[in-house]
């Protein structure tokens, strides 16, 4: 089977079988340019992707920059034990899961609704306008978007100005720990709602139109058509994206966190990646924070493998 698919497979005559070495030599002669390019590109992967993986050894060492990677002493799982027994671990775990769960419930479902509503718009010009406008915040850089959010939510910012019209005392939203996940998730909705709906709109446009015709002939009204045809049609896409989201339940990028947080909300805002940045890059605790990062990475890849397996079982959709 495999041989039939291979482009350069031998013709179906019984030639004397080549040894492994002969095959390597022939293959190299034929593709030596490609191999040269591959070597060039893979050297990038080895230096900037695989060397850091080897560098993860510092998570099991007491790394001192002066002694170098090789000269530092092995300490086994010391940093991991220290991290798991510190009060940071439950805090980071709670914050990471809170932010991810909220963005799963809010950030991942709203684009589906937007796509469904857009699909019901009869005028294509109006539909395109709405799409263009809702994609727009996606093209504002993260730094500027967070800057605008913080400005609007500041003590004398727009939001407090509007609230004061209703007699509400001004609140410094960005300094209230409980509000942090909401600010994080809703600023994300603002930036990505339109953009994230693209995938669903694509799925919607690939539904067979005859299904709608058949449903109409069977007497379905518009809402029943959405319920019985449209939603089942995009269900595989929804399931795949949800599973991917659940698979990345333990990861929150540090960039947006460190843009939005400050010391006052650290208790609710700090996640694994921002902790690694603060302790490692700012505090210089290389080994400790590399251990935290490694733990987080391993959990992430385990979750991904598990949920990909689940997805493959129930819906035949898989990432690899």
């Amino acid at each position, binding site marked *: 089977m495999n041989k039939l698919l291979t482009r350069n497979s031998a013709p179906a005559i019984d030639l004397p079988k080549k040894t492994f070495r002969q095959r390597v030599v022939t293959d190299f002669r034929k593709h030596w340019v490609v191999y040269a390019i591959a070597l060039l590109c893979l050297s990038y992967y080895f230096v900037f992707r695989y060397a850091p993986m080897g560098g993860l050894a510092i998570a099991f060492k007491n790394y001192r920059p002066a002694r170098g990677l090789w000269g530092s002493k092995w300490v086994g799982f010391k940093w991991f034990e220290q991290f798991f027994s510190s009060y940071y671990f439950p805090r980071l775990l709670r914050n990471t899961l809170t932010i991810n769960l909220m963005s799963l419930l809010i950030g991942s479902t709203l684009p589906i609704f937007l796509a469904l509503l857009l699909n019901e718009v009869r005028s294509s010009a109006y539909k395109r306008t709405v799409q263009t406008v809702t994609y727009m915040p996606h093209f504002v850089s993260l730094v500027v978007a967070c800057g605008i959010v913080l400005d609007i939510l500041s003590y004398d910012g727009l939001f407090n100005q*509007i609230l004061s019209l209703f007699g509400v005392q001004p609140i410094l939203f960005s300094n209230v720990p409980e509000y942090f996940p909401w600010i994080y998730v809703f600023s994300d909705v603002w930036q990505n709602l339109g953009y994230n709906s693209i995938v669903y709109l694509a799925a919607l446009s690939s539904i067979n139109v005859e299904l709608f015709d058949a449903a109409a002939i069977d007497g379905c009204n518009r809402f029943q058509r959405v319920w019985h045809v449209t939603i089942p049609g995009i269900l595989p896409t929804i399931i795949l994206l949800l599973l991917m989201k659940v698979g990345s339940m333990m990861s929150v990028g540090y960039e947006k966190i460190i843009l939005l947080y400050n010391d006052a909300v650290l208790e609710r805002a700090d996640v694994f990646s921002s902790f690694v940045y603060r302790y490692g890059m700012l505090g210089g605790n290389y080994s400790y924070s590399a251990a935290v990062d490694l733990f987080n990475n391993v959990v992430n890849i385990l979750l991904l493998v598990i949920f990909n397996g689940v997805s493959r079982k129930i819906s035949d959709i898989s990432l690899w």
Partner: protein
Amino acid sequence: MKRRQASPEQWNYGQISLSSRIFDTANYIFLFLLCVLMIYPLWYVLCCSFSDPALLMRHSGILLWPLDFSFAGYEKVLNYKQLWNSYVVTIFVVIAGTAMNMLFSILFAFVLSRKGMMWHKLITGLAVFTMYFSGGMIPTYLVVKSVGLYDTVWAMIIPGLISTYNCIILRTAFYGIPDSLEESAKIDGAGDLRVLFTICVPLIVPSIATVALFYAVGHWNSWSAALLYIRDEKLMPLQMVLRALLIQGEAIEVTGGQDLQTELNNMLLKYVVIVVSTIPILCVYPFIQRFFTKGVMIGAVKG
């Protein structure tokens, strides 16, 4: 023949019922309000940037139009040397970075598309594995430091030279090219590189444009590489200067600005700086939007 789309435009199944009409109206109004909500923060910033700072300070509530249209902020920002310096750095990173990204990504995607090669699976595996597992922030930082990139402009370009995801998009495009085209070129005596650059690349220009755009916008918006690997003030890209200004509340140093109203100007300049740094990308946005939406679709297809 154009494929029929699953949109209600063509659904003229008898008369449109009243409830359906009510829904349509509500839907149109809701989407309109949503658009207003999405666009208003940007409009607010734009209005503030053109306002008179003293009036802006006293104003409370929603702004629909600039207060006393003035260019005061824009005149001041011309003297903001650090901003323009960072602009130059960012433009360099966008141009040089995207060029290098594209060269290496096309080459590597070409390698990934050679199914007949012996170690093809191994090479693909090595690349794909890095999408799911990485050494993380600290070890990468140590590597960047030890290869001597630290505090050079290349630290913002080389560590992210090849994005495996983008390579897979390009590889999928290469797969779409019929084998017979390549084979006929090979029979005519073309080598691998010649096949790549004279046959394959011209055929996948739309995908190349999409990926180049991903890289370019990525460089424009990037600040984490500078955060981790750059100390030199002169090498700070635009987004880092914006972060210092908008997030960390750093005062704006404008040369020759011996103003009594420094605080007012600082507030105004914040908005002006946002506009000045965002306008370039929002200007090209309508033209690049379709490439981006296309990119999302390609990414959604299993590679």
